[in-house]
C-alpha cells in the first residue's frame, strides 16, 4: 500500500474519560511499562511520545493524557482538536464512567465528524468480579458508533499494547484511505507548528534548569 512509501508518520492520540478510570495508568504502562497505584490526579493535560513500527511502517504516537474532571473540559476542545485518534476509557466497575464515554463519543463525532478513529476501552479488567458494565452492552455500543472495543488492565499489563497498536493500525488505514498527500499535510499541521516569522531556534540561550 501507499503507506510503505512514507518515511515516518505521526499521529496524535488523545485519552479521554471520567476521572480515575485509569487513563494515566494506561499511558504510563504503554510508554514506560510502569504501574504505580499511588500516582497523582491529572489536573493539566500532558503528553508523551511513543515510537512504534507496524509492518515496517515507522510511526510516532503523540499520546495526550487529559484530566478526567469534567469541569476542566469547560476550557474547550483544545486537547482533542486535530487528534487522529481517541482512546475513550471507562472503568468496568463504574457504570457512570461508561455513560461518560457515550457523552464523549457524541461530542467528538459532532466536533470532528468521522475523521477520527475511536477506541473504547474498558479498563481494570482485573476487577472482573466487580464488573458493572455488561460486556455485550459495551461491545454493541462500540460497533454501533464505529469504534473498536478493548478490555485492558493497566495494573496487570493486559491488552494495553494491543489496544494502542490496534488503534494505530486503524489510523494508518484511515490515513491511506484519505489519500496520503492531503492527509499528510494535515498530520503535519497537527504535529508541528510552522510559523514564518519571528523567533528562530536560538540554541544555547535557554535559561531553564535554574
Amino acid at each position, binding site marked *: 500500500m501507499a503507506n510503505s512509501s512514507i518515511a515516518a508518520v505521526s499521529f496524535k492520540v488523545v485519552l479521554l474519560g471520567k*476521572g*480515575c478510570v485509569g487513563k494515566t495508568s494506561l499511558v504510563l504502562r504503554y510508554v514506560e511499562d510502569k504501574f504505580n497505584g*499511588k*500516582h*497523582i*490526579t491529572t*489536573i*493539566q*493535560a*500532558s*503528553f508523551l511520545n511513543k515510537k512504534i513500527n507496524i509492518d515496517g511502517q515507522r510511526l510516532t504516537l*503523540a499520546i495526550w493524557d487529559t*484530566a*478526567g*474532571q469534567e*469541569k*476542566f473540559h*469547560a*476550557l*474547550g476542545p*483544545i486537547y482533542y482538536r486535530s487528534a487522529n485518534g481517541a482512546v475513550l476509557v471507562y472503568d468496568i466497575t463504574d457504570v*457512570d464512567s461508561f455513560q461518560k464515554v457515550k457523552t464523549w463519543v457524541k461530542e467528538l463525532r459532532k466536533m470532528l465528524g468521522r475523521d477520527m478513529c475511536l477506541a473504547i476501552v474498558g479498563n481494570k479488567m482485573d476487577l472482573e468480579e466487580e464488573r458493572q458494565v455488561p460486556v455485550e452492552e459495551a461491545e454493541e455500543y462500540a460497533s454501533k458508533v464505529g469504534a473498536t472495543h478493548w478490555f485492558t488492565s493497566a495494573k496487570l499489563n493486559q491488552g494495553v499494547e494491543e489496544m494502542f497498536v490496534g488503534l494505530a493500525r486503524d489510523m494508518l488505514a484511515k490515513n491511506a484511505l484519505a489519500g496520503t498527500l492531503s492527509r499528510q499535510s494535515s498530520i503535519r499541521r497537527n504535529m*508541528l*507548528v*510552522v*510559523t*514564518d*516569522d*519571528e*523567533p*528562530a*531556534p*536560538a*540554541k544555547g*540561550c*535557554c*535559561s*531553564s*534548569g*535554574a
Partner: protein
Amino acid sequence: MDDIVGDKNAKFKELYNQDGVFLRQAGEMYTPMFGCTGSLYLWEHISDAESKPEVPSRFLEWRPQDFVELKTALDEGSEEWTLIESVKKRCRTSSGNMVKDFLNSIGNLNVCFSNIKSLRCSKHDVLTTFYDGSCELLASFVFPTSESREHFLGTIQAFVRLQPTRRDKSLFIVYDAASPGFKDLEKSFAALDLKTDSSFWSLLKNIKSNPYEKSMEAFAKVTGYVYNSVDDEEHYMAQDDLQRSISEIGDDASAYAVYDIPNCLPMRVDYPRCNPLTREQWRAQLNGEGQLEDVESIKTLIFRGGISPDIRRVVWKFLLGYYPWDSTEKERHALDISKMESYYKIKMQWTTFSKEQEDNFSDFSQRKSLIEKDVNRTDRVLDFYAGENNYNIFSLNNILLTYLLYNFDLGYVQGMSYLLSPIYMLLRCEVEAFWCFVGFMKQVMSNFDYDQNAMKEQLKSMYLLVNFIDPQLSKYFEDHECANMYFCFRWLLVWYKRELQQDEVARLWEVLWTGYPCKNFHLLIGVAILEHERDALMGDNNGFTEILKFINELTGKLDINLMINHAEGIYHQIKDADHLTDAVRNILGIPVAEASGLQSKPEDDRSPRKGVSEPDEIEFEKSIYSNFLSSSTGRLVFLFRP
C-alpha cells in the same frame, strides 16, 4: 537575484565574514538551502577608474558550508584569487570570473545592500531578517552567537543608520548614513547639550565597569528625555550621540547599545526577601490579653519572609480566618470549642447516613466515591500520607466529605484535595484543618465553578500582565496559538501546589494569604516564572504542545523564593509605569492614584533587609534621573531589562 559581480574587473573588500550562519529563509529559489549553515560575507566594491556604475557598492553574500569548503580547496591553487588588502582578519578581493562561476553553479545568496530597507533583530534571539522597500523578505539568518551579530551590526553601522520603529522595537529602518538631513538632526540634538550634565557623565563613567547595564541605563535617560519632546528621528539621534560618547570611554561598550530600545517600564528594583517571622517577633506583638498589637506589621513580615515553621501552626489559623486577627486569648479559647462543636455537627450529617439513604442520594454517593479515589492519589509520596490504611488519608477523606456537606452546591472537584493536604499536614487536627480549609476555599472557590469562568478570567489576566511587562513574549504566545495560556491552568487552579515541594508550597501560600502587596499576586508569581523561562519558551519555535510540555516539566525545578522576589519587582514596575492601563490596574487592584507604594516595604528596622539594592541606593538613582530631567519637559522612560 542581480548579477552582482558581473563586472570582470570589479574588486571587493571583505568587511565582514562569519561562519556558522544558518539560513532560515530567503527568496523561493533558495528553498533547498533553507536550514543550511554557511558563511556570511559583507563585500564592499572597491571602485576605481575602470569599474562600472552598475556594480553595487556593498552586498551581502551567504555561501552554504560545503561550498565554502570547495572554495577553500580551489582557493589554494588558484591564481585568480589575489590578496590585495587586509582589513581586520582575512580579506580578499577576487577577480569577477571565479566568483561568477561559483554563483552560477551553486547559486550563492546575494543581497544588494542598498536594497535593504529594514531589518529585524530582536534582542532575545540571534535571528536577523532583512526586508526590501516593499517589506518583502530578502533573507533571514541565524547568527551563531549574539557577539557575532553584534559585530555584524557594528560593521554595517559604519555606513547605515538603524532606526528602531516605535511600534515594534525589534524592527529597524535602515538609512543610508550619507543621506541628506542626517547632519541637521545631529546638530539639533547637540543643541540639547546633554553632555554637560554632571550626573549624566558620572553614569557614563560607570559604563566601563558594567558596559551593558550602564549603557542601557544611560539610554533610558536619553530616550526618556527625548521621547515626548522630539520626533522619532531625533529619538534615534539621541542614542546615536550617546553611542559615540560611550565609545569615547570604553570600546567594549560600543558593541552593545544602539539597536536595542527599552520598553517603557520603570527599572526593576530588587526587593530582597527577608528572614521568616520568628516566634519572638510574634510574641512581641501580643499584648496582655493575647491580642496582636500591630497586625499590618506582622503581615508585612510574613509577606517579606514567610513564617518560621515552629509557629506556622498558630499563624496559619489567623491567616486562614480560623481566628480573627484582633481576637484575644480568651476569645480564641472559646472559638476552639465552638468550632469543634460545629465541625462534628456537620460531620455527623454524613456519618449517620444509612446505606439505603446513601444509595438514594446519588449526588452524594458519586461525590463520595470521587473523594475516596482522589485522596488515594494525593501526596502519597510523602511519608505522612504513604502506605496502606494511612490514618491521615482517612482524615483527608473525612474533612473533604464534611466540606462536601458544608458546601454542597460547590460539591467536590478534583484538585481540592491538593489544597487541603498541606493544611492538614501542618495542623494534624481534623477540626482545625477543616476550618482553615474553609478559609482557603473562600479565596479560591471560584476556581472550581462549573463554568470555569473564574479560571478563564485569570488566564486572560495572566496574558494581559505578560503583555504589559514583556510584549515580545505575549506576541510569541499569540503567534503560536498559546494566547489562551492554558498551560498555566494547573498553576492557578491549585496555587502552584503541584509544582513545588511541600515546604515550598507552605512558604508560597503563607505569603499569598497575606494579600500583600496587591490583589491577585498569585498571577504575578506565574508571570515571574514565565518571564524567567522566556528564552526557553520562545526557543526552537515552540508551539502550544512544546510549551505545555515544558511547563509541565518545570515541576520540582522552580526556585519559589526567587519567583516571589521577581513577582514583587514586577508588581512595582507595573504600579509605577506611566502607561499603566485600567485593565491591568483592575487585575491587581491598584487604585488610580496610589498615594504610597510602600505598603509592601518593611516599615521599620526590625525587618532585616539584605542584598545589594539598598533603598538608599535606589532612591539615589531615582534622584539622579529626576535631576537630569528637572530642566526638561520630557517624560522619563526606563528600561524593562537593564
